[in-house]
């Protein structure tokens, strides 16, 4: 076995960045699970909607395909965050309203939620595959931000888009951690996560809290879609499929229901995936990453951090 130790810096840095994106998507899975014990499999489609909204707004309607700079670029990125977040957050709330709330009202079994989630994922994904939306072909992400090499970390080149993605992810995690742990709305989310009936008895509006949870998870998933589309310069109907599976894995790896676990799980998965190719072929990337998941779960069934939203 010959190991390409020379490839280590690049594999490490790209794995770290990829992991941060996984983590950002994983938030949507982990928050909804924390509150409702529901695995929202449609979150991959919600993520894709974030990227698609930017494709439509910047690419199709405003034709912003030429590189911009300075104030224009900064405001475009800010608008992009807001639009992708609102598009995905709004879609997530709508999804909850149409697909999950009726089931909750009727006290449906957990399996029904799961089937509804899988169904919703397919529905949205294949809706976007239709010609009047994204169609079957891949589109380029609007090129309003030129790609240029921004910095070199331990010998690996990192471009400005990836730097933006990492900085944004870190900032969003800090904001979310503060929101969940320090604000009134955050406290109500934690209350519902801990005991839904008790929270209701204490006067918490459960429906509003659930909607809020979906919105926040969707909002962050949308921004992740924006960043993912930009980093890989691609928007397509099936953009969410693989990142969705990986992010869900990251959430479980870190401890599903746990915000900090999502970050840890995402980064771990990204690094394991990339570094596993150091000594053997890249086609072993996924088998190795998922073997690590299984191993972690054998020894720590609740994931690395292993505590839910409720415990904090």
């Amino acid at each position, binding site marked *: 076995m010959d190991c390409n130790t020379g490839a280590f810096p690049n594999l490490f840095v790209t794995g770290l960045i990829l992991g941060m994106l996984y983590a950002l998507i994983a938030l949507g899975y982990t928050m909804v699970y924390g509150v409702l014990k529901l695995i929202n499999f449609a979150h991959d489609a919600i993520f894709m909607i974030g990227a698609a909204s930017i494709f439509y707004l910047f690419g199709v309607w405003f034709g912003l395909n030429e590189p911009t700079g300075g104030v224009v670029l900064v405001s475009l990125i800010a608008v992009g965050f807001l639009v992708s977040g609102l598009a995905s957050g709004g879609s997530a709330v709508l999804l909850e309203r149409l697909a999950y709330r009726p089931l909750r009202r009727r006290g449906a079994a957990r399996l029904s939620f799961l089937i509804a989630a899988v169904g919703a994922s397919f529905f949205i994904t294949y809706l976007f595959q239709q010609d009047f939306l994204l169609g079957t072909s*891949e589109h380029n992400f609007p090129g309003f931000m030129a790609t240029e090499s921004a910095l070199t970390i331990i010998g690996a*080149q990192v471009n400005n888009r990836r730097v933006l993605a990492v900085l944004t992810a870190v900032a969003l995690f800090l904001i979310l951690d503060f929101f969940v742990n320090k604000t009134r709305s955050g406290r109500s989310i934690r209350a519902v996560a801990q005991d839904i009936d008790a929270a209701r008895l204490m006067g918490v509006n459960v429906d509003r809290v659930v909607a809020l949870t979906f919105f926040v998870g969707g909002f962050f998933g949308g921004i992740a879609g924006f960043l993912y589309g930009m980093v*890989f310069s*691609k928007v397509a109907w099936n953009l969410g499929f693989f*990142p969705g599976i990986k992010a869900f894995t990251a959430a479980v790896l870190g401890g599903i229901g746990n915000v900090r676990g999502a970050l840890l799980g995402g980064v771990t998965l990204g690094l394991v995936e*990339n570094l596993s190719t150091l000594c053997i072929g*890249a*086609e072993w990337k*996924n088998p190795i990453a998922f073997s690590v998941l299984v191993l972690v779960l054998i020894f720590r069934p609740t994931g690395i951090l292993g505590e839910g939203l409720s415990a904090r």
Partner: protein
Amino acid sequence: MKRSRSTVLMASLAALALVAAACGGGEEDGDTATGGGGGGCTWEIGTIGALSGDLATVGGPIAEGIRYGVEQANEQMDLACELTLNEQDSQGAEDQAPPLAQTLVQSENLVAVVGPYFSGETAAVGPTFEDAGVPFLTPSATNPDLSTNGWTNFFRLVGTDAQQGEEAATYMTEVEGLSNIVVMHDNSEYGKPLADTVASTLGDSAATVIALNPEETDHSAELSKALNEDPDGIFFGGYQPEFSEILKQGTEQGLDVVYVSGDGSKAPELSQDPSAEGSIVLCPCDDPAVSTNEEANQFAEDFESAVGEPPGTYATEGYDGIQLVATALQEGGYDGDTPIEEIRTGIQEYVANNTYEGLSKTYEFDETGELGQVSIFAYQTSSEGATGFEQLGLVSELAGQ
């Protein structure tokens, strides 16, 4: 070599036009608009391929070339019966194709088939056509194994992946002067053998072979490994969407090398991203819109005004396939009363034993149904070109062989 080919083509076209004019005058006075197809009888040419579904982006242009070919044959050639097209939509799936092939061979007017388009479905339906004695000419199935089945009715109108792989290696080492090439592929039935041929032909010039998962978007791990080899070139065996991703992510990671891919990457979408500018695609196809052959340019113009879009990849081969069958029908002197089996055999014999000057190349088949001489063209991605490419020329000529 190219010039002489054009001259021969031009001469044969002129001769054909004369014959058509003479016969038209003699037999069908006053009915020149419909041209051939005099006796009220019909001859059917079948075609099977991806006319709908995901792969219709590949199958669609081929079918357009075939339809245009039938239209032109009826207008310009003097055939005793009218040619009609029997289209069967397999969506490119090898499990859907066999029943459709059965439908075709049971048709009493079927004289030949131009298709199927993909290698998998061709392998699946080959025995059906062979048993029925129906000549089938594939315009685009490039898997080398297809000609090893002993099918006498099989003809391939393009070069194989093996031939393409060898020429790709020649191009990279002799034309581009590369010496340390990373070979990548998408682990598909098409991409992997192509990449393996390239790697084995390259020998010591191949640094390493790396597989990637086409369903994933992020290829940073694979490209990091490539970067570690400090290559001067990358070859990718696979399809355009993944080649685009390699180009985008590779240049971002600082892989400033010559990028080369095969015919699977020759789609107009490739040139949409600036990162693709200057990358090389090799194809056994002569893209008529950007061809250095003026005859082909004219064809592209006529095609576009008739169909509404420029001829896509392998549209010319589809067109040539129809023209070749029509020529065989004309030369055989058949009419509406000739038994269909006799016509099928006659077409097989004509195609197998004659040299045909087509639009994209000279068609001369060996006993396995392969072209004796293949033409692999090199294209450079360019936002200026009509179809997103500029033709550099034949690899064999560029390499000075």
